[in-house]
């Protein structure tokens, strides 16, 4: 899917034509530089590698600097491959917001969700806990309950919902409407919420 790399700015709201107050997210995205075009002859598949953001020179390895030389020499922070661009692109081309998206269309947004750390089953899986909070109960309020049967099968099944790391994972939100595009400021306003903290990198896909 063709798309662009962006940065989450934050959430606000706007009125629709019907007078509804819609929650929306502002994303700063584009211009993205085409850093490499992968072809079937060379790489075995077709894709376009895009770069976005700025990177300090002292944090860039020599091999990456060589890679950036082929597309104009700007040091870019994020490199992501996309497939299915209709345009004929070559390394060094710049993709702007309006080249890829229009107002009113639906997009998917990929981001990294906010990390919640090690969480129990109540927060992580929506369990209700065991028993009462009062009447002498003292340590079962947020417990998972039984995790399986007895001597048959004599083990805990794989995939059992238990406590563990929550958040800080790749999350895709599908079918978000592009409400508004500010081409001059490279800003796009998308309906609803998207994963991740403010300032985090997100991918917007057609």
């Amino acid at each position, binding site marked *: 899917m063709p798309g662009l790399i962006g940065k989450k700015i*934050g959430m*606000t709201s*706007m009125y629709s034509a019907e007078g509804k*107050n819609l929650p929306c997210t*502002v994303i700063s995205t584009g211009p993205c530089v085409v850093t490499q075009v992968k072809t079937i002859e060379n790489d075995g598949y077709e894709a376009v590698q895009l770069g976005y953001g700025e990177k300090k020179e002292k944090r860039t390895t020599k091999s990456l600097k060589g890679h950036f030389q082929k597309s104009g020499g700007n040091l870019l922070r994020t490199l992501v491959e996309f497939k299915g661009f209709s345009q004929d692109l070559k390394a060094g081309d710049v993709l702007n917001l309006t080249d890829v998206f229009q107002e009113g269309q639906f997009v998917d947004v990929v981001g990294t969700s906010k990390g919640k750390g090690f969480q129990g089953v109540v927060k992580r899986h929506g369990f209700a806990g065991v028993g009462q909070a009062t009447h002498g109960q003292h340590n079962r309020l947020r417990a998972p309950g039984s995790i399986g049967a007895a001597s048959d099968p004599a083990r805990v099944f794989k995939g059992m919902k238990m406590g563990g790391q929550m958040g800080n994972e790749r999350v895709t939100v599908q079918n978000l409407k592009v409400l508004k595009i*500010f081409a001059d400021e490279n800003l796009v306003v998308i309906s609803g919420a998207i994963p991740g903290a403010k300032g985090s990198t997100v991918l917007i896909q057609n």
Partner: protein
Amino acid sequence: MDILREVSKKLVEANDLPEFSAGDTVIVSYKIKEGSKERIQQFQGIVIQKRGSGTNETFTVRKISGGIGVERIFPLNSPFIDDIKITKKGRVRRARIFYQRERTGKSARIKEKKRFIKKA
């Protein structure tokens, strides 16, 4: 954060409603949808507060209807607001005149601002 504030400002469509503040007497014309029909309802009263900014900016209008105080909160930038007419500019010292709720009759009067020129 600043980018967000600027974008939020742009998302609010400019309306040509007059400036008003707490203490003013206004008539708010509000569009109401009943099924497929749309009609305009008017609500006259005293503005007792304005709060929020951008799409979240609202104002509260209070009136006495049949001896009972009625307050209504309107979103300022909603497209459902057809018109706001200021009939009286009140002289009050506070931005939020909640003390009006405890007052009735003579004590609930608000002095009019002297140099108020009604907009045509």
